[in-house]
């Protein structure tokens, strides 16, 4: 058997599929942190997004409505983080941790209400995976064609979002304001832009993106919602964003790296290349991330005012 026969296009396609939820959540986190709000709540927001996407798709039979409601639910849920961290001046990490805890309680509670049983939802009648679409011509390009141009809707959205958000941060007014809010919020406030509004917006955007990541899991990659189906992906996204140097493109590449490592370990198992316990394969992507962080990723700088509370009128001047 050829030792490296699994290094094929399918590996890359699998990489993209595995990294999509991570990419989306990491993109959202990038916007959020560029505006100076630390976000560790992606895991919780994703699970909320996944749940509402599945519920809506289940009851309406329309996965596109499910997509919309999952995204929106993520956005709305993230506003709790915005309110807590920005208006109530709660430590951002604390607020994020609370949101993660709450999300699991809420979905479990609602599972029983909506489906009458916990665990996994009933299968939705139609899912976004049915809308796989090959871009004419482009999908014929060897290797890259199937990887980037013959995919399902949310995967396309994630590609577009990477480019869009990188462009958005660089070239739009709001993007400029977001970057300024994370570096020097007072400078922004003093020229008449409300820092609070910008931060709220950034958190909301991150919520939408994480909600989309959740929707991907429940109604595009699969056809039902399962409690805990995010399985730590939100935190991997956090790692991807940090090792991606707080940039859209960097987050995408880091997420791809993790997805690649994960796809690779599955193939290691399929080919049973090493005779060691399976758990060692499962560990592989995590270990690879540590090595990548230690070896390749240099000290990248977070936005200067990341996680710093912003209060305009000081109590004791």
């Amino acid at each position, binding site marked *: 058997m050829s030792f490296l026969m699994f290094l094929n296009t399918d590996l890359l396609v699998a990489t993209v599929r595995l990294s999509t939820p991570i990419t989306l959540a990491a993109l959202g986190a990038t916007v959020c942190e560029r505006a100076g709000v630390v976000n560790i709540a992606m895991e919780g927001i994703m699970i909320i997004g996944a749940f509402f996407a599945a519920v809506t798709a289940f009851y309406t039979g329309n996965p596109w409505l499910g997509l919309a409601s999952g995204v929106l639910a993520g956005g709305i849920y993230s506003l709790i983080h915005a309110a*807590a961290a920005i208006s109530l001046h709660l430590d951002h990490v604390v607020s994020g941790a609370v949101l993660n*805890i709450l999300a699991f309680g809420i979905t479990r*509670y609602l599972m029983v209400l909506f489906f009458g049983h916990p665990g996994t939802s009933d299968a939705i009648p139609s899912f976004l995976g049915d809308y796989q679409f090959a871009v004419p011509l482009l999908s014929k390009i060897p290797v890259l064609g199937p990887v980037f141009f013959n995919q399902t809707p949310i995967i396309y959205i994630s590609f577009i979002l990477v480019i869009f958000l990188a462009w958005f941060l660089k070239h739009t007014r709001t993007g400029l304001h977001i970057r300024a809010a994370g570096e020097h919020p007072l400078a922004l406030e003093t020229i008449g832009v409300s820092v609070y509004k910008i931060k709220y917006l950034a958190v909301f955007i991150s919520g939408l993106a994480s909600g989309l990541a959740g929707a991907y899991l429940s109604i595009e990659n699969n056809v039902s919602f399962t409690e805990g189906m995010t399985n*730590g992906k939100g935190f991997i996204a956090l790692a991807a964003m940090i090792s991606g140097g707080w940039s859209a493109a960097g987050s995408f590449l880091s997420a791809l790296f993790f997805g690649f490592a994960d796809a690779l370990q599955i193939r290691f198992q399929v080919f049973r290349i090493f005779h060691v316990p399976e758990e*060692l394969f*499962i560990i592989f992507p*995590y270990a690879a991330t*540590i090595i990548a962080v230690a070896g390749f990723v240099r000290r990248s700088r977070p936005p200067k005012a990341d996680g710093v509370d912003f209060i305009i009128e000081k109590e004791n001047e």
Partner: protein
Amino acid sequence: MTGNKTGTKVRSEREHMKKALDLISVLLLAAGAVYYLGGSFSGLAALSSGAALYLFNIYYFQGKEKTLSAVKKYLSRLIVPLIGIAAAVVSGAVIMLLTGYDPIESYTALFYGGFVKNWYVAVLNATPLIFTGLSIAFAFKAGLFNIGAEGQYYIGAMAGAWLGFKLELPPLIAIILVYAAGSFLASLWNFIPALLKVKTGAHEVITTMMFAHIARYLSPIFIRAFGGDPATSTHPYVTWELPESSWLLSFKSFIPDANYRLHTGILIAVAAAFFVSYVLENTKTGFEIKAVGFNKEAARVQGISVGKNIFIAMMFAGALAGMAGITQVLGLDHKLFENLQAGYGWNGISVALLASNNPVGVIFTSLLWGALDAGGQYMARTTHTPNSIVEIIKGIMLFLIVAKYIYIYAARLIKKKKGGGSV
């Protein structure tokens, strides 16, 4: 001359008496705590009489004002948490009503189950939480987020089980050695994250979390290595039982009516909390860690090594989280299960935050969390309310207690109202 001498004598007598009374009240408090944690409610009586004696002591020797200010001091610390708990309970009730459950019946079951009926379960739940909570709180003090406490917990549990098998020593010595060596191994689990943090600046949130995943998947390999032959053993996916010499003492051995599962790990946890508190408040190491945590730059300028203290904090945090695993294995299970949903690392974050990273506070928040979990189970069993409502209530509680700014807003609002009304 003589008068002066008598004065001194009287004073010293009073001093002695005060000291003696103080000692008695501390002993009462300690004994009460031990009994209460042992599941015996007679401990509550000892606790309250100890507290009363303490206050009486202040009143008798220092006067009314001091007493009042002491009472005030303790009450003012409690007021925000109590409001937060009350508000969360009310929000929970509203949710239950909206979704068709009976709040009064549910809460009765929740609190009766958590604090009375199954109080010993609350204590069992709290024991590992105190350790992981301490671990996270301690790292927070140094400005680090030990998000991977869960991983150190697994390492501690594995180390505890392994050493428990390997060390064939008399009981007490075996336990001490298991704790020492096991927590050392768990602290080593944080060595690479600490090293990377200091040398390359790699964020500890990434590294400790990745290491947590790794530890989690190592535990099944470990269990298979130390478990019986799956084909013949009675319990194939659990390790063998530890020799009794490495079991922790159970409360039943000195409180006859205690639940037989309740072990003295909780006392070790409480002692650890006081120890951590002591280290932070009264040692130069604690001083340096706090200085580094609050302001790295200023600490560096004063010749305090930031790297060294990050190392100390990470390793110590690892050891504390490891002790949670050790205690669970030596005290409760006496073997290592494949239990990948333990979640003690995660809940440790909650209890640490809830206690504002105060080590002694962690004891109380862990007990509260443990009681809510135990009560939630009781509630789910005796009523129809699903116990996921408890998770929601816990989340709301966390918000309302930690978001102190809510109270500042509220105070301002009330003030404004009053001000506006009078004009």
